[in-house]
């Protein structure tokens, strides 16, 4: 067994929250550059240039890339030979979020109840998913998930007969209905298969793959490429002002499913794709 103290977890989460909001990952910046090479619309070109400028300003001045500094979604890959000491894992993560959002001048966007809607003041709690995996390390992946794009995420139970064409139609329908509300250029995480909640979880996890990298499954990779090409023919473009860059990436994850089902969950992510990870 290897001990990992909760204070190390809090410190790591605090840092990840601040850095995610100040500093877009290189995969997103490279995707902006690729888009600038193909975008035909002058308005679209201008938006992409401003987004690059925005990323540079945020990094240099340590102010958030977007004022919506997101809901912290935290995936923990907990090695089964790790012993968390010093307190509860969940509390440690939330302490890190609270410190990161406070000390980083990040916006508190979480209300304590969906009904009375009183702001918790420190952006806690995070949404935490823990997977127990082989090994003696603890990996933390966080995403600062924007509300505007999350509001356009969707789920549909297709029938097995609808098959691949059905999945394609549904994903493109999600891009269409997300439109400018979700701040295109978008990134889509698509979870196919499993059960209702499994598909939704996969759709979030899919977003952590490096933007522009191939899907390790050749069949899914081919489908991703087809979907991305078609999404970028819709004409929505950066900010919905019209153009060729509606999506920067569409990432699929699949899981076995029941003989009756073809669940498809689509998480819509905006260009402020703030994701960071660390291994303790």
């Amino acid at each position, binding site marked *: 067994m290897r001990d990992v103290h909760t204070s190390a977890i809090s410190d790591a989460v605090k840092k990840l929250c601040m850095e995610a909001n100040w500093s877009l990952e290189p995969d997103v910046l490279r995707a902006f550059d690729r888009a600038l090479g193909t975008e035909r619309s002058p308005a679209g070109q201008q938006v992409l240039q401003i987004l690059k400028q925005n990323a540079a300003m945020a990094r240099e001045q340590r102010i958030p890339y*977007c004022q919506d500094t997101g809901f912290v979604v935290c995936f923990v890959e907990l090695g089964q030979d790790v012993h968390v000491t010093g307190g509860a894992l969940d509390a440690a993560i939330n302490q890190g979020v609270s410190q990161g959002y406070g000390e980083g001048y990040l916006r508190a966007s979480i209300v304590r109840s969906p009904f009375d809607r009183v702001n918790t003041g420190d952006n806690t709690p995070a949404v935490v998913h823990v997977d127990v995996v082989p090994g003696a390390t603890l990996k933390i992946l966080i995403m600062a998930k924007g509300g505007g794009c999350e509001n356009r995420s969707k789920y549909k139970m297709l029938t097995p007969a609808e098959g691949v064409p059905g999945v394609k139609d549904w994903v493109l329908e999600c891009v269409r209905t997300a439109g400018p*509300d979700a701040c295109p250029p978008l990134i889509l995480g698509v979870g196919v298969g499993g059960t209702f909640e499994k598909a939704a979880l996969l759709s979030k996890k899919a977003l952590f793959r490096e933007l522009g990298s191939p899907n390790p499954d050749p069949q899914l990779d081919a489908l991703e490429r087809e979907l991305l090409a078609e999404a970028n023919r819709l004409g929505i473009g950066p900010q919905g002002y019209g153009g060729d860059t509606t999506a920067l990436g569409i990432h699929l994850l699949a899981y076995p499913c029941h003989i009756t089902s073809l669940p498809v969950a689509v998480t819509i992510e905006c260009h402020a794709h703030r994701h960071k990870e660390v291994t303790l």
Partner: protein
Amino acid sequence: MVKTAADGVKELATPLSDADVESLRAGDRVRITGVLYTARDAAHGRLLPLIEKGETLPFDPRGQIIYYTGPSPARPGSVVGSIGPTTASRMDKYVPALLKLGLKGTIGKGYRSQPVKDALRQHRALYLGAIGGAGAVLSQFVKKLEVVAYEDLGTEAIRRLEVEGFPAIVLYDCHGGDLYQDGQKAYARAGA
């Protein structure tokens, strides 16, 4: 009076007149100098009952622009943190009542409903777009900020911003023009 600068961008100064509004078309790029009031979901939820009861609002909406945003906190020595637009359609139900009181514009992002479009035409008003997710860049145009109401709402409080050259684009004009529709039609390709 709306002037066109050498770079083709229209210079807007608040408060806006009907003539200012009527001179603009969807797709026009603008720079706004003057005052913007911030308000989003929770603040609108408090304004509507006041309007319904005929009570005075925390600010006089005549000729003014509401910016749908909830800024991130300012670092010490800064005017504001990041300050980009939020999705406007959540505020659609409040728009007609505010335009009736003389509000001349809103700034946000995303599609709006037909009743909003109709109200813009009826009351001569604009729906402007700021670039969603460009909150760091947009912060540099805010020169002064003060909370005018609902401080308890935190980021959702109503703030009075003094802005200089705040960049926006006309999404819906008061003549039925719609940048989203025109722009997207121009770039949609067969088979999509």
